[in-house]
């Protein structure tokens, strides 16, 4: 094995998102961004494979409509050797298929590879489609939702948890693997690693640099609305002089609601 590609998304940090209470719209423009959690696990796994197999290069590929340098620097500090980013305002409204087309073209342009690693899902849109879509566009066999991974000769072996079983799957290289958060605990780069990373290369492309058919980037999905969920709860506080009194009042309320079986 010579080269591992990791697809990295710069995602909205959903734990810091704010909602406009009047309109229930999300305020995404000013929300902080970070490396999507699951992708960080994919990168960590790639770096571990590199540490185990001498001569392996780890390359990241990112598709973004906005600046993503901080995330790429972090990836390089974690141990990636080179980062490619397709940065183009024209990518603002692409859906999962458009993103996958751009990723696939960028991966092809980045050169030969044995393995493509992706997070199972992204932190913000959480669709869990892009990895498999890239796999399809590159005609790669795939192992999805891997929680353990190893390379054995010309194949990758992944363990995945299904609804009622644990399965071990072997796929011939080159292959694509999507990983879960359980697979590892990503490292926190040391100051040394951060300094060393500043010398590593970030290659920036625009859509014009890639052989992407623009027609294929048109979104296939129409967004009807994206709004914070309505909370229609009663918000009644139960108070009392003693714990017993509170419990009595609560029990009574629940029985009246008809949600307790007699």
């Amino acid at each position, binding site marked *: 094995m010579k080269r591992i590609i990791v697809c990295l998304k710069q995602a909205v940090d959903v734990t810091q998102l704010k909602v406009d209470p009047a309109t229930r719209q999300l305020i995404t423009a000013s929300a902080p961004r970070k490396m999507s959690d699951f992708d960080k696990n994919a990168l960590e796994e790639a770096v571990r494979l590199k540490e185990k197999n001498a001569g392996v290069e780890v390359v990241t590929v990112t598709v973004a409509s906005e600046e993503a340098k901080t995330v790429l620097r972090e990836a390089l500090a974690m141990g990636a050797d080179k980062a490619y980013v397709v940065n183009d305002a024209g990518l603002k409204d692409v859906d999962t298929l458009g993103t996958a087309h751009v990723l696939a073209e960028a991966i092809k342009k980045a050169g030969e590879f044995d393995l493509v690693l992706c997070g199972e899902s992204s932190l913000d849109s959480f669709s869990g489609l892009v990895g498999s879509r890239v796999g399809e566009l590159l005609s790669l066999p795939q192992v999805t939702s891997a929680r353990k991974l190893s390379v054995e000769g010309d194949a990758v072996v992944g363990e995945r948890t299904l609804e009622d079983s644990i399965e071990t799957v072997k796929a011939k290289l080159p292959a694509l693997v999507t990983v879960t958060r359980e697979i590892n605990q990503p490292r926190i780069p040391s100051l040394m690693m951060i300094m060393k990373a500043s010398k590593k290369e970030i290659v920036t492309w625009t859509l014009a640099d890639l052989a992407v058919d623009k027609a294929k980037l048109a979104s*296939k999905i129409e967004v009807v609305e994206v709004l914070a969920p309505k909370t229609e709860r009663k*918000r009644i506080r139960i108070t009392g002089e003693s714990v017993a009194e*509170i419990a009595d009042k609560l029990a009574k309320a629940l029985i009246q609601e008809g949600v307790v079986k007699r």
Partner: protein
Amino acid sequence: MSEGKGVWVFSENADLTLEMLGKGREIADKVGAELAAVVIGSNAADWANELVKYGADKVYLVDNAMFGRFQAEAYLSVLHNLVVNYKPETVLIGSTKNGKPLAARLATRLEVGCVPDCSRLGVDEKGRLVGERITYGGNAVAKLTFKTKPQIVTVPSRAFEKPQPKKRSGQVVKLDLKAEQAKTEVVETKPLETSSVRIEEAEAIVSCGRGLEKKEDRVLLDELAAVLCGQVGCSRPLAEDRKWFSEWVGLSGHKVKPKLYIACGISGVIQHVAGIRDAKVVVAINKDEQAPIFEVADYGVVGNLYEILPALKEALKKQLQ
């Protein structure tokens, strides 16, 4: 029934197939289309006939020893072949760990859109198929529709009711399809220990968060749950970090719909709340009166769960007598 309007369902999971037939029937009736199920398997003729009772007008049956168990590439190539030949307008695919990648690759092979994990699905007043999914870590619900056909949707387990079987007539179409040599191979399968009771089916859930100090204290929840004929649940940290439970409620866990959900020592972060949207009544017990869980609860008690839970159990026992 006009050509190219069919609604299809496919899942390798039996229960999910039935649940999607229920929802599929509703959509098909609204748009005046035929409802079809796709069955890929081995010795599956009886199952195919059974699906008619659950609402299928037609069942495409691909029965071959090679399809005895799920094989990603083979199933994809069969399903793609069928879709290209019979041109359904809508395809519902069960959002299992195997089904979702299948849907993603099918949609890509067809160059069309896919809306994953629809917790709600319906036809709007303009006749469009609209799927609802939770996004942005539970901060928002997205309503999405399609610009391309076929419209590929993935449906999670237990999102929709299983219909009652009825005596009805339908057609089973047997097809002899084979699949190409696969580049992946399942080398081992081990059964997974899962609780036989599914939390999605619980009528009452007593759920705990990091407010629970010790694993053994779970008995407090068990006892209350027993009085309520319900089950016990938890927030993610109790399962993922502390490993006291194997499953959790929320965005990345189970989406539950009990009549009663009692959240004890759970702060009510949006990712947790995303899993209890469909609970009828939510009760919050938390010692921090500022905890966000109170904003999304019907009844709130500011207090120590170690005192409130036993007292509530006694009060319920007394009043239910």
